[in-house]
Protein backbone atom coordinates (compact mmCIF):
# COMPACT_ATOMS: atom_id res chain seq x y z
CA UNK A 1 0.00 0.00 0.00
CA UNK A 2 1.31 3.37 -0.98
CA UNK A 3 0.73 5.51 2.09
CA UNK A 4 1.90 9.07 2.54
CA UNK A 5 1.92 8.99 6.33
CA UNK A 6 1.84 6.71 9.37
CA UNK A 7 -1.79 7.66 9.96
CA UNK A 8 -4.02 4.74 10.83
CA UNK A 9 -6.93 6.67 9.34
CA UNK A 10 -5.14 6.93 6.02
CA UNK A 11 -4.43 3.22 6.05
CA UNK A 12 -8.09 2.34 6.61
CA UNK A 13 -9.32 4.75 3.95
CA UNK A 14 -6.77 3.54 1.46
CA UNK A 15 -7.90 -0.02 2.12
CA UNK A 16 -11.42 1.02 1.20
CA UNK A 17 -12.94 0.73 4.66
CA UNK A 18 -16.01 2.88 5.34
CA UNK A 19 -14.51 4.88 8.20
CA UNK A 20 -16.15 6.39 11.26
CA UNK A 21 -14.74 9.43 13.00
CA UNK A 22 -16.16 11.30 15.96
CA UNK A 23 -15.41 14.49 17.78
CA UNK A 24 -14.32 15.37 21.28
CA UNK A 25 -14.63 18.95 22.46
CA UNK A 26 -12.00 19.74 25.12
CA UNK A 27 -13.19 21.27 28.41
CA UNK A 28 -12.95 24.84 29.66
CA UNK A 29 -10.57 23.85 32.43
CA UNK A 30 -7.18 22.31 32.94
CA UNK A 31 -8.07 18.68 33.66
CA UNK A 32 -8.01 15.95 31.02
CA UNK A 33 -10.43 13.86 33.04
CA UNK A 34 -13.41 14.14 30.62
CA UNK A 35 -11.21 13.84 27.54
CA UNK A 36 -9.80 10.57 28.84
CA UNK A 37 -13.27 9.39 29.85
CA UNK A 38 -14.60 10.07 26.35
CA UNK A 39 -11.56 8.56 24.66
CA UNK A 40 -12.05 5.29 26.58
CA UNK A 41 -15.70 5.26 25.67
CA UNK A 42 -15.14 5.91 21.96
CA UNK A 43 -11.97 3.90 21.46
CA UNK A 44 -13.50 0.72 20.09
CA UNK A 45 -16.29 2.42 18.16
CA UNK A 46 -14.53 4.91 15.92
CA UNK A 47 -11.40 4.90 13.78
CA UNK A 48 -10.20 8.32 14.83
CA UNK A 49 -11.50 11.31 16.75
CA UNK A 50 -11.33 14.99 15.97
CA UNK A 51 -10.21 17.29 18.71
CA UNK A 52 -11.68 20.72 18.25
CA UNK A 53 -9.53 23.84 18.45
CA UNK A 54 -11.37 26.32 20.68
CA UNK A 55 -14.58 25.78 18.75
CA UNK A 56 -16.93 28.76 18.46
CA UNK A 57 -13.96 30.81 19.67
CA UNK A 58 -14.40 29.78 23.29
CA UNK A 59 -11.18 29.20 25.23
CA UNK A 60 -10.72 25.51 25.92
CA UNK A 61 -7.92 23.09 26.67
CA UNK A 62 -5.81 23.13 23.51
CA UNK A 63 -6.46 20.66 20.70
CA UNK A 64 -2.76 19.84 20.72
CA UNK A 65 -2.70 18.77 24.39
CA UNK A 66 -6.08 17.03 24.19
CA UNK A 67 -4.87 15.07 21.17
CA UNK A 68 -1.90 13.82 23.17
CA UNK A 69 -4.21 12.74 26.00
CA UNK A 70 -6.41 10.63 23.72
CA UNK A 71 -3.40 9.21 21.92
CA UNK A 72 -2.22 7.87 25.28
CA UNK A 73 -5.57 6.11 25.56
CA UNK A 74 -4.92 4.32 22.27
CA UNK A 75 -7.37 6.37 20.20
CA UNK A 76 -6.11 8.10 17.09
CA UNK A 77 -6.58 11.87 17.17
CA UNK A 78 -7.34 14.22 14.29
CA UNK A 79 -5.98 17.47 15.61
CA UNK A 80 -7.96 20.47 14.41
CA UNK A 81 -6.04 23.65 13.75
CA UNK A 82 -7.71 26.95 12.94
CA UNK A 83 -6.16 30.02 11.36
CA UNK A 84 -7.87 32.34 13.81
CA UNK A 85 -5.46 32.28 16.73
CA UNK A 86 -1.97 31.63 15.39
CA UNK A 87 0.33 32.98 12.74
CA UNK A 88 2.46 30.81 10.47
CA UNK A 89 5.31 30.78 12.98
CA UNK A 90 3.19 29.42 15.82
CA UNK A 91 1.40 27.00 13.51
CA UNK A 92 4.59 25.43 12.21
CA UNK A 93 6.01 25.23 15.73
CA UNK A 94 2.85 23.41 16.89
CA UNK A 95 3.01 21.10 13.87
CA UNK A 96 6.56 20.07 14.72
CA UNK A 97 5.62 19.60 18.36
CA UNK A 98 2.42 17.67 17.62
CA UNK A 99 4.17 15.35 15.23
CA UNK A 100 6.97 14.72 17.73
CA UNK A 101 4.31 13.57 20.20
CA UNK A 102 2.77 11.10 17.79
CA UNK A 103 -0.10 13.07 16.23
CA UNK A 104 -0.53 12.04 12.60
CA UNK A 105 -3.81 13.59 11.39
CA UNK A 106 -4.50 17.27 11.00
CA UNK A 107 -7.72 19.03 10.04
CA UNK A 108 -7.05 22.50 8.66
CA UNK A 109 -9.78 25.05 9.32
CA UNK A 110 -10.45 28.77 9.03
CA UNK A 111 -12.02 28.96 12.49
CA UNK A 112 -15.22 30.56 13.75
CA UNK A 113 -15.07 34.31 14.14
CA UNK A 114 -14.06 35.44 17.62
CA UNK A 115 -17.28 37.42 17.96
CA UNK A 116 -19.11 34.11 18.61
CA UNK A 117 -16.98 33.21 21.59
CA UNK A 118 -16.20 34.38 25.09
CA UNK A 119 -13.43 36.77 24.00
CA UNK A 120 -15.16 38.88 21.36
CA UNK A 121 -12.66 41.72 21.86
CA UNK A 122 -9.70 39.52 20.91
CA UNK A 123 -7.62 40.23 17.83
CA UNK A 124 -7.94 37.57 15.14
CA UNK A 125 -4.87 36.46 13.26
CA UNK A 126 -5.72 34.88 9.89
CA UNK A 127 -2.13 35.21 8.75
CA UNK A 128 -2.93 32.21 6.54
CA UNK A 129 -6.30 31.02 5.34
CA UNK A 130 -7.26 27.36 5.56
CA UNK A 131 -6.15 26.59 2.00
CA UNK A 132 -2.76 28.19 2.59
CA UNK A 133 -2.46 26.18 5.81
CA UNK A 134 -3.21 22.97 3.93
CA UNK A 135 -0.54 23.83 1.38
CA UNK A 136 1.99 24.72 4.07
CA UNK A 137 1.49 21.36 5.81
CA UNK A 138 1.80 19.54 2.50
CA UNK A 139 5.00 21.37 1.57
CA UNK A 140 6.48 20.67 4.99
CA UNK A 141 5.83 16.98 4.37
CA UNK A 142 6.46 16.51 0.64
CA UNK A 143 8.95 19.24 -0.18
CA UNK A 144 10.53 19.28 3.29
CA UNK A 145 10.43 23.05 3.54
CA UNK A 146 9.10 25.58 6.01
CA UNK A 147 6.59 28.15 4.80
CA UNK A 148 9.47 30.57 4.14
CA UNK A 149 11.09 28.06 1.79
CA UNK A 150 13.98 27.14 4.09
CA UNK A 151 14.64 23.40 4.15
CA UNK A 152 13.59 21.18 7.02
CA UNK A 153 16.90 19.35 7.11
CA UNK A 154 15.61 16.27 8.89
CA UNK A 155 12.55 14.78 10.58
CA UNK A 156 9.89 16.65 8.62
CA UNK A 157 6.37 16.38 10.05
CA UNK A 158 4.29 13.98 7.95
CA UNK A 159 0.62 14.68 8.53
CA UNK A 160 -2.37 13.08 6.86
CA UNK A 161 -4.05 16.31 5.80
CA UNK A 162 -7.73 17.02 6.23
CA UNK A 163 -10.00 19.89 5.37
CA UNK A 164 -13.62 20.85 5.85
CA UNK A 165 -16.26 21.38 3.19
CA UNK A 166 -19.62 23.00 3.72
CA UNK A 167 -22.20 22.12 1.07
CA UNK A 168 -24.75 24.25 2.91
CA UNK A 169 -22.89 27.53 2.78
CA UNK A 170 -23.07 29.93 -0.15
CA UNK A 171 -22.37 30.54 -2.95
CA UNK A 172 -23.42 26.92 -3.49
CA UNK A 173 -21.89 26.59 -6.97
CA UNK A 174 -18.53 27.71 -5.59
CA UNK A 175 -18.49 25.12 -2.80
CA UNK A 176 -17.32 22.25 -5.00
CA UNK A 177 -14.73 24.49 -6.64
CA UNK A 178 -13.47 25.48 -3.22
CA UNK A 179 -13.28 21.81 -2.29
CA UNK A 180 -11.21 21.28 -5.41
CA UNK A 181 -8.95 24.16 -4.41
CA UNK A 182 -8.42 22.48 -1.05
CA UNK A 183 -7.61 19.15 -2.68
CA UNK A 184 -5.25 20.85 -5.13
CA UNK A 185 -3.54 22.51 -2.16
CA UNK A 186 -2.99 19.11 -0.52
CA UNK A 187 -6.12 18.02 1.35
CA UNK A 188 -6.37 14.20 1.45
CA UNK A 189 -9.53 13.75 3.48
CA UNK A 190 -12.57 15.97 3.85
CA UNK A 191 -15.10 16.20 6.66
CA UNK A 192 -18.30 17.99 5.76
CA UNK A 193 -20.53 20.29 7.72
CA UNK A 194 -23.43 18.58 9.50
CA UNK A 195 -25.90 17.22 6.96
CA UNK A 196 -29.65 17.52 7.47
CA UNK A 197 -30.49 18.49 3.90
CA UNK A 198 -29.76 15.25 2.05
CA UNK A 199 -30.94 16.56 -1.28
CA UNK A 200 -28.47 19.44 -1.27
CA UNK A 201 -25.69 17.16 -0.06
CA UNK A 202 -26.44 14.71 -2.88
CA UNK A 203 -26.23 17.52 -5.42
CA UNK A 204 -22.93 18.62 -3.93
CA UNK A 205 -21.57 15.09 -4.13
CA UNK A 206 -22.75 14.70 -7.72
CA UNK A 207 -20.81 17.80 -8.67
CA UNK A 208 -17.77 16.60 -6.72
CA UNK A 209 -17.89 13.19 -8.38
CA UNK A 210 -18.32 14.82 -11.77
CA UNK A 211 -15.01 16.60 -11.19
CA UNK A 212 -13.42 13.37 -9.95
CA UNK A 213 -12.78 14.82 -6.50
CA UNK A 214 -13.91 11.63 -4.69
CA UNK A 215 -10.95 9.88 -6.30
CA UNK A 216 -8.49 12.50 -5.13
CA UNK A 217 -9.66 12.81 -1.51
CA UNK A 218 -11.72 10.77 0.93
CA UNK A 219 -14.97 12.54 1.69
CA UNK A 220 -16.53 11.87 5.10
CA UNK A 221 -20.13 12.98 5.59
CA UNK A 222 -20.70 15.05 8.74
CA UNK A 223 -23.67 14.05 10.91
CA UNK A 224 -25.10 15.04 14.24
CA UNK A 225 -27.62 13.29 16.48
CA UNK A 226 -30.22 15.82 17.58
CA UNK A 227 -30.87 15.68 21.29
CA UNK A 228 -33.77 18.10 21.51
CA UNK A 229 -36.15 20.22 19.47
CA UNK A 230 -34.55 23.32 20.98
CA UNK A 231 -31.11 22.32 19.74
CA UNK A 232 -32.47 21.72 16.25
CA UNK A 233 -34.26 25.06 16.21
CA UNK A 234 -31.15 26.83 17.50
CA UNK A 235 -29.02 25.38 14.71
CA UNK A 236 -31.67 26.23 12.15
CA UNK A 237 -31.85 29.85 13.21
CA UNK A 238 -28.48 30.76 14.68
CA UNK A 239 -25.66 28.70 13.24
CA UNK A 240 -24.34 30.30 10.06
CA UNK A 241 -23.66 27.86 7.26
CA UNK A 242 -26.17 25.24 8.45
CA UNK A 243 -29.43 24.13 6.90
CA UNK A 244 -31.93 22.32 9.13
CA UNK A 245 -35.05 21.62 7.06
CA UNK A 246 -38.37 22.14 8.80
CA UNK A 247 -39.32 18.47 8.35
CA UNK A 248 -36.43 17.47 10.61
CA UNK A 249 -37.87 19.57 13.39
CA UNK A 250 -41.41 18.39 12.64
CA UNK A 251 -40.29 14.79 13.00
CA UNK A 252 -38.87 15.45 16.46
CA UNK A 253 -42.02 17.32 17.40
CA UNK A 254 -44.18 14.46 16.22
CA UNK A 255 -42.12 12.02 18.29
CA UNK A 256 -42.61 14.23 21.31
CA UNK A 257 -46.35 14.50 20.70
CA UNK A 258 -46.56 10.73 20.49
CA UNK A 259 -44.85 10.47 23.85
CA UNK A 260 -41.58 9.14 22.46
CA UNK A 261 -38.14 10.16 23.67
CA UNK A 262 -36.95 13.01 21.41
CA UNK A 263 -33.28 12.15 21.88
CA UNK A 264 -33.96 8.57 20.87
CA UNK A 265 -35.72 9.81 17.75
CA UNK A 266 -32.66 12.02 17.08
CA UNK A 267 -30.42 8.98 17.28
CA UNK A 268 -32.66 7.00 14.94
CA UNK A 269 -32.65 9.89 12.49
CA UNK A 270 -28.85 10.05 12.64
CA UNK A 271 -28.62 6.33 11.93
CA UNK A 272 -30.97 6.74 8.98
CA UNK A 273 -28.82 9.57 7.67
CA UNK A 274 -25.74 7.33 7.94
CA UNK A 275 -27.53 4.68 5.91
CA UNK A 276 -28.56 7.27 3.34
CA UNK A 277 -25.16 8.90 2.89
CA UNK A 278 -23.54 5.46 2.57
CA UNK A 279 -25.51 5.03 -0.64
CA UNK A 280 -24.19 8.26 -2.14
CA UNK A 281 -21.31 7.79 -4.55
CA UNK A 282 -18.05 9.22 -3.31
CA UNK A 283 -18.79 9.09 0.43
CA UNK A 284 -15.88 7.32 2.12
CA UNK A 285 -17.10 7.43 5.69
CA UNK A 286 -18.99 9.38 8.32
CA UNK A 287 -17.94 11.98 10.84
CA UNK A 288 -20.27 11.97 13.83
CA UNK A 289 -20.31 15.27 15.68
CA UNK A 290 -22.19 14.53 18.87
CA UNK A 291 -21.51 17.92 20.37
CA UNK A 292 -21.49 17.67 24.19
CA UNK A 293 -23.08 14.21 23.79
CA UNK A 294 -20.03 12.07 23.05
CA UNK A 295 -21.41 9.11 25.01
CA UNK A 296 -24.12 8.46 22.41
CA UNK A 297 -21.61 7.68 19.64
CA UNK A 298 -21.19 3.95 20.45
CA UNK A 299 -24.97 3.47 20.27
CA UNK A 300 -25.14 5.19 16.88
CA UNK A 301 -22.23 3.20 15.49
CA UNK A 302 -23.81 -0.05 16.65
CA UNK A 303 -27.27 0.79 15.37
CA UNK A 304 -25.79 1.76 11.99
CA UNK A 305 -24.17 -1.65 11.74
CA UNK A 306 -20.70 -0.14 11.76
CA UNK A 307 -19.50 -2.09 14.78
CA UNK A 308 -17.02 -3.68 15.23
CA UNK A 309 -14.51 -1.37 13.63
CA UNK A 310 -11.83 -2.83 11.36
CA UNK A 311 -8.32 -3.43 12.62
CA UNK A 312 -5.64 -1.36 10.94
CA UNK A 313 -3.04 -4.12 10.90
Amino acid at each position, binding site marked *: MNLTTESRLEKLLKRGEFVVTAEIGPPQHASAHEIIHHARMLKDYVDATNITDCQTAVVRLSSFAAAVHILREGLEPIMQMT*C*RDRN*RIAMQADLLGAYSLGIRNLLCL*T*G*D*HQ*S*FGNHPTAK*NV*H*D*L*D*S*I*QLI*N*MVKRMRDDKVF*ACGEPIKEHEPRFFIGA*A*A*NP*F*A*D*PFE*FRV*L*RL*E*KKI*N*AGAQFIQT*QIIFDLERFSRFMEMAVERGLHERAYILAGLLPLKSIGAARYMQKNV*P*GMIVPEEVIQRLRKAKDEGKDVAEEGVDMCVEFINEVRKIKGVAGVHIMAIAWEEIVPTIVQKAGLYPRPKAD
Partner: protein
Amino acid sequence: MIVAEQKPFAEIAGFVADCNKILVAGCLGCVAVCLAGGEKETEILAAALRMHRRLQGKPLETVTYTATRQCDPEYVDAMADLVKDVDAVVSLACGVGVQYLAERYRDKWVVPALNTRFVGGSVAQGVWEERCGLCGECILHKTGGICPIIRCSKSLLNGPCGGSQYGKCEISKDVPCAWQLIYDRMKALGKLEWLLEYQPPKDWSKSRDGGPRKAVREDATI
Protein backbone atom coordinates in the same frame (compact mmCIF):
# COMPACT_ATOMS: atom_id res chain seq x y z
CA MET B 1 -10.68 59.03 3.08
CA ILE B 2 -10.07 58.50 6.76
CA VAL B 3 -13.33 58.14 8.63
CA ALA B 4 -13.44 59.20 12.26
CA GLU B 5 -16.05 59.69 14.96
CA GLN B 6 -16.09 61.99 17.93
CA LYS B 7 -15.28 60.41 21.27
CA PRO B 8 -17.95 60.50 23.99
CA PHE B 9 -18.15 64.05 25.31
CA ALA B 10 -17.43 63.04 28.91
CA GLU B 11 -14.18 61.43 27.84
CA ILE B 12 -13.01 64.58 26.07
CA ALA B 13 -14.10 66.78 28.98
CA GLY B 14 -12.14 64.51 31.30
CA PHE B 15 -8.93 64.97 29.29
CA VAL B 16 -8.98 68.73 29.96
CA ALA B 17 -10.63 68.77 33.40
CA ASP B 18 -7.61 70.50 34.95
CA CYS B 19 -7.13 73.11 32.21
CA ASN B 20 -8.16 76.75 32.28
CA LYS B 21 -7.55 77.54 28.63
CA ILE B 22 -7.46 75.20 25.67
CA LEU B 23 -7.08 75.28 21.91
CA VAL B 24 -9.71 73.22 20.10
CA ALA B 25 -8.17 72.41 16.73
CA GLY B 26 -10.18 71.10 13.79
CA CYS B 27 -9.06 69.86 10.41
CA LEU B 28 -10.47 70.58 6.97
CA GLY B 29 -9.31 67.25 5.54
CA CYS B 30 -11.05 63.86 5.71
CA VAL B 31 -12.57 64.45 9.15
CA ALA B 32 -14.40 67.53 7.88
CA VAL B 33 -15.90 65.47 5.04
CA CYS B 34 -17.13 62.79 7.44
CA LEU B 35 -18.58 65.44 9.73
CA ALA B 36 -16.38 64.61 12.70
CA GLY B 37 -13.75 67.34 12.97
CA GLY B 38 -14.38 70.20 10.55
CA GLU B 39 -14.97 73.85 11.39
CA LYS B 40 -18.56 73.36 12.53
CA GLU B 41 -17.77 70.38 14.77
CA THR B 42 -14.81 72.26 16.24
CA GLU B 43 -16.96 75.26 17.23
CA ILE B 44 -19.69 73.01 18.64
CA LEU B 45 -17.24 71.01 20.73
CA ALA B 46 -15.60 74.17 22.09
CA ALA B 47 -18.99 75.63 23.02
CA ALA B 48 -20.08 72.38 24.66
CA LEU B 49 -16.90 72.22 26.71
CA ARG B 50 -17.33 75.84 27.85
CA MET B 51 -20.94 75.23 28.82
CA HIS B 52 -20.09 72.06 30.68
CA ARG B 53 -17.40 73.83 32.68
CA ARG B 54 -19.56 76.84 33.39
CA LEU B 55 -22.20 74.53 34.86
CA GLN B 56 -19.48 73.00 37.00
CA GLY B 57 -18.58 76.47 38.25
CA LYS B 58 -15.12 76.18 36.76
CA PRO B 59 -15.17 78.23 33.54
CA LEU B 60 -12.96 77.19 30.64
CA GLU B 61 -11.54 79.53 28.05
CA THR B 62 -11.39 78.12 24.53
CA VAL B 63 -9.67 79.22 21.37
CA THR B 64 -10.63 77.54 18.12
CA TYR B 65 -8.73 77.03 14.90
CA THR B 66 -9.38 74.77 11.94
CA ALA B 67 -6.28 73.86 9.98
CA THR B 68 -6.31 73.12 6.26
CA ARG B 69 -4.73 69.78 7.17
CA GLN B 70 -3.24 68.69 10.47
CA CYS B 71 -1.16 66.03 8.71
CA ASP B 72 1.05 68.66 7.09
CA PRO B 73 3.81 70.47 9.05
CA GLU B 74 3.18 73.69 7.18
CA TYR B 75 -0.40 73.99 8.44
CA VAL B 76 0.51 72.78 11.91
CA ASP B 77 3.14 75.55 12.16
CA ALA B 78 0.46 78.12 11.46
CA MET B 79 -1.12 77.45 14.86
CA ALA B 80 2.02 78.34 16.83
CA ASP B 81 0.72 81.67 18.17
CA LEU B 82 -2.51 80.13 19.38
CA VAL B 83 -0.84 77.15 21.02
CA LYS B 84 1.58 79.31 23.00
CA ASP B 85 -0.55 80.22 26.01
CA VAL B 86 -3.03 77.34 26.28
CA ASP B 87 -2.82 74.48 28.79
CA ALA B 88 -3.84 71.85 26.26
CA VAL B 89 -4.75 71.28 22.63
CA VAL B 90 -7.81 69.18 21.79
CA SER B 91 -7.38 67.92 18.24
CA LEU B 92 -10.35 66.97 16.11
CA ALA B 93 -8.09 65.48 13.45
CA CYS B 94 -7.45 61.79 12.83
CA GLY B 95 -4.67 60.06 14.75
CA VAL B 96 -2.15 61.46 12.30
CA GLY B 97 -3.09 65.05 13.05
CA VAL B 98 -2.95 64.50 16.81
CA GLN B 99 0.57 63.12 16.45
CA TYR B 100 1.68 65.96 14.20
CA LEU B 101 0.53 68.45 16.81
CA ALA B 102 2.19 66.52 19.63
CA GLU B 103 5.44 66.32 17.68
CA ARG B 104 5.45 70.00 16.77
CA TYR B 105 4.35 71.31 20.19
CA ARG B 106 6.39 69.09 22.45
CA ASP B 107 5.67 70.87 25.72
CA LYS B 108 1.90 70.88 25.20
CA TRP B 109 -0.67 68.36 26.38
CA VAL B 110 -2.29 67.29 23.07
CA VAL B 111 -5.36 65.06 23.30
CA PRO B 112 -7.59 63.39 20.70
CA ALA B 113 -11.23 64.31 20.40
CA LEU B 114 -11.91 61.64 17.78
CA ASN B 115 -11.64 57.91 17.40
CA THR B 116 -10.07 57.25 14.02
CA ARG B 117 -12.12 54.41 12.60
CA PHE B 118 -11.14 53.33 9.11
CA VAL B 119 -10.38 54.15 5.51
CA GLY B 120 -13.58 54.19 3.55
CA GLY B 121 -16.21 56.25 1.89
CA SER B 122 -19.76 57.44 2.09
CA VAL B 123 -22.52 54.99 1.15
CA ALA B 124 -25.52 57.16 2.08
CA GLN B 125 -26.03 60.54 3.67
CA GLY B 126 -24.39 60.25 7.09
CA VAL B 127 -23.22 56.64 6.57
CA TRP B 128 -19.67 55.57 5.86
CA GLU B 129 -18.17 52.13 5.28
CA GLU B 130 -14.70 50.67 5.38
CA ARG B 131 -13.22 49.80 2.00
CA CYS B 132 -9.43 49.52 2.27
CA GLY B 133 -7.30 47.52 4.69
CA LEU B 134 -4.11 49.41 3.83
CA CYS B 135 -2.32 46.09 3.28
CA GLY B 136 0.33 47.71 1.12
CA GLU B 137 -0.04 45.35 -1.84
CA CYS B 138 -3.31 45.78 -3.67
CA ILE B 139 -5.04 42.66 -4.98
CA LEU B 140 -8.29 44.24 -6.18
CA HIS B 141 -7.55 43.16 -9.76
CA LYS B 142 -7.90 39.54 -8.58
CA THR B 143 -11.08 40.02 -6.62
CA GLY B 144 -13.37 42.01 -8.87
CA GLY B 145 -12.64 45.31 -7.19
CA ILE B 146 -13.85 44.09 -3.77
CA CYS B 147 -11.28 43.94 -0.97
CA PRO B 148 -11.28 40.64 0.96
CA ILE B 149 -8.56 41.87 3.30
CA ILE B 150 -10.86 44.28 5.05
CA ARG B 151 -14.36 43.35 3.90
CA CYS B 152 -14.02 39.65 4.78
CA SER B 153 -14.05 39.38 8.58
CA LYS B 154 -11.26 36.80 8.34
CA SER B 155 -9.24 38.38 5.51
CA LEU B 156 -9.48 35.18 3.48
CA LEU B 157 -7.71 35.09 0.13
CA ASN B 158 -8.96 31.83 -1.38
CA GLY B 159 -12.71 32.11 -1.20
CA PRO B 160 -15.55 32.18 1.33
CA CYS B 161 -15.44 30.29 4.63
CA GLY B 162 -18.22 27.95 5.68
CA GLY B 163 -20.02 30.75 7.49
CA SER B 164 -21.17 32.54 4.35
CA GLN B 165 -24.89 32.04 3.88
CA TYR B 166 -27.63 33.85 1.97
CA GLY B 167 -25.04 36.44 0.95
CA LYS B 168 -24.20 37.40 4.53
CA CYS B 169 -21.12 37.08 6.70
CA GLU B 170 -21.33 34.85 9.76
CA ILE B 171 -20.64 37.78 12.07
CA SER B 172 -23.89 39.58 11.29
CA LYS B 173 -26.92 39.49 9.05
CA ASP B 174 -26.17 43.15 8.33
CA VAL B 175 -22.74 42.44 6.85
CA PRO B 176 -22.52 41.23 3.26
CA CYS B 177 -20.10 38.35 2.67
CA ALA B 178 -17.23 39.90 0.71
CA TRP B 179 -16.59 36.61 -1.06
CA GLN B 180 -20.20 36.35 -2.18
CA LEU B 181 -19.81 39.83 -3.67
CA ILE B 182 -16.53 38.83 -5.27
CA TYR B 183 -18.01 35.62 -6.64
CA ASP B 184 -21.05 37.39 -8.09
CA ARG B 185 -18.96 40.07 -9.74
CA MET B 186 -16.31 37.74 -11.16
CA LYS B 187 -19.07 35.50 -12.49
CA ALA B 188 -20.80 38.46 -14.14
CA LEU B 189 -17.49 39.50 -15.66
CA GLY B 190 -16.87 35.97 -16.96
CA LYS B 191 -13.70 35.70 -14.87
CA LEU B 192 -14.59 32.92 -12.41
CA GLU B 193 -11.44 31.01 -13.34
CA TRP B 194 -9.44 33.69 -11.50
CA LEU B 195 -10.98 32.49 -8.26
CA LEU B 196 -9.80 28.93 -8.83
CA GLU B 197 -6.19 30.01 -8.78
CA TYR B 198 -4.45 29.36 -5.45
CA GLN B 199 -3.46 32.57 -3.71
CA PRO B 200 -0.30 32.04 -1.65
CA PRO B 201 0.17 33.45 1.85
CA LYS B 202 0.25 37.22 1.84
CA ASP B 203 3.35 39.26 2.59
CA TRP B 204 2.07 41.02 5.70
CA SER B 205 5.39 42.83 6.11
CA LYS B 206 4.01 45.30 3.59
CA SER B 207 1.08 45.85 5.94
CA ARG B 208 1.32 47.15 9.53
CA ASP B 209 3.10 43.97 10.58
CA GLY B 210 6.38 45.24 9.17
CA GLY B 211 6.49 48.18 11.58
CA PRO B 212 5.66 51.79 10.73
CA ARG B 213 5.73 52.30 6.98
CA LYS B 214 7.38 55.02 5.01
CA ALA B 215 6.89 56.14 1.43
CA VAL B 216 9.62 58.04 -0.39
CA ARG B 217 9.22 59.61 -3.81
CA GLU B 218 12.76 60.36 -4.92
CA ASP B 219 11.57 62.69 -7.66
CA ALA B 220 9.62 64.78 -5.17
CA THR B 221 12.29 65.10 -2.47
CA ILE B 222 14.51 68.14 -2.25
